[in-house]
């Protein structure tokens, strides 16, 4: 596996400068990115997001994941301890041409979004035949 090609694949995630039309806060979900022979896999923790509220976009080499969370109804609720905030999740990544955009797929279960970014055929490891004399 070529590590030199792989280090260009996903640069540091960009800052959260999404436009917001609501007043809820926006959070950057924790992710793990793993590269294997045939694909890049991105795991993002987005607890509290329903499956139908997950959005994924891939455009011009930029992958954007978004998890929309319904506004809380706070009337009548008294908070005794709040260790996490509630808001939308948003994160973008620059993805190189190693990824075959047409083959991206995603699963979402238990608050974890799993994105499968398959590599284009040329980027997968190939065995090269050595021709001898």
């Amino acid at each position, binding site marked *: *596996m070529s*590590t030199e090609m*792989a*280090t260009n*694949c*996903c640069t540091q995630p960009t800052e959260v400068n999404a436009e917001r039309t609501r007043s809820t806060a926006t959070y950057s979900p*924790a*992710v*793990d*990115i*793993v*590269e*294997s*022979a045939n694909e890049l*896999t991105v*795991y993002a*923790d*987005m*607890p*509290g*997001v*329903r*499956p139908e509220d997950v959005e994924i976009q891939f455009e011009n080499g930029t992958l954007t994941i978004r998890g929309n969370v319904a506004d809380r109804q706070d009337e*009548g*609720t*008294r*908070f*005794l*301890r*709040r*260790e*996490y905030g509630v808001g939308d999740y948003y994160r973008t990544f620059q993805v190189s041409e190693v990824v075959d955009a047409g083959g991206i797929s995603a699963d979402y*279960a*238990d*608050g*974890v979004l799993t994105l499968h970014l398959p590599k284009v055929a040329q980027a997968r490891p190939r065995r090269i035949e050595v021709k001898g004399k």
Partner: protein
Amino acid sequence: MSLIPWRRKHEQSDVLPGRAVGALRSEFDRLFERFFGDFETAFPELSAGGAWMPSLEVSEAGNDLIVKAELPGVDARNVEVTVSGSILTISGEKRDELERRDGVTYVSERHFGRFQRSIELPAAVDADKVTAENANGVLTIRFPRTATSRPNRVKVLPGK
């Protein structure tokens, strides 16, 4: 950390300058000891010793006490909720068996492994009628509020 009261009166000798500084210093010592020594229990949600702690939210709404824990990647089978007297304990394991088999990891921000957190419930609750539901990575435990203190094991139901 309590603030040192500032006293104008000089005739009162209960707060000599030396003693005030000593009191301040021992406050700092206690704070540092708490920060560097007992870190895991003092700041449980920031524990970085390999284990991780779920973040909690405790609220009261209507007649219920609601405890929510962020547990992404943990399904109902892997979490255990116990109530004993006024102590609620949430424990379990977040597994990553399939994710690290082969391949190079470039970014690793998520935590895995066993977790356990106990909190003291702030109000008297009826442990017999507690419900727990795990949906989309958030565990929601709901107690109706009354006075009871028997230990009770809660069955966690998977969410939708």
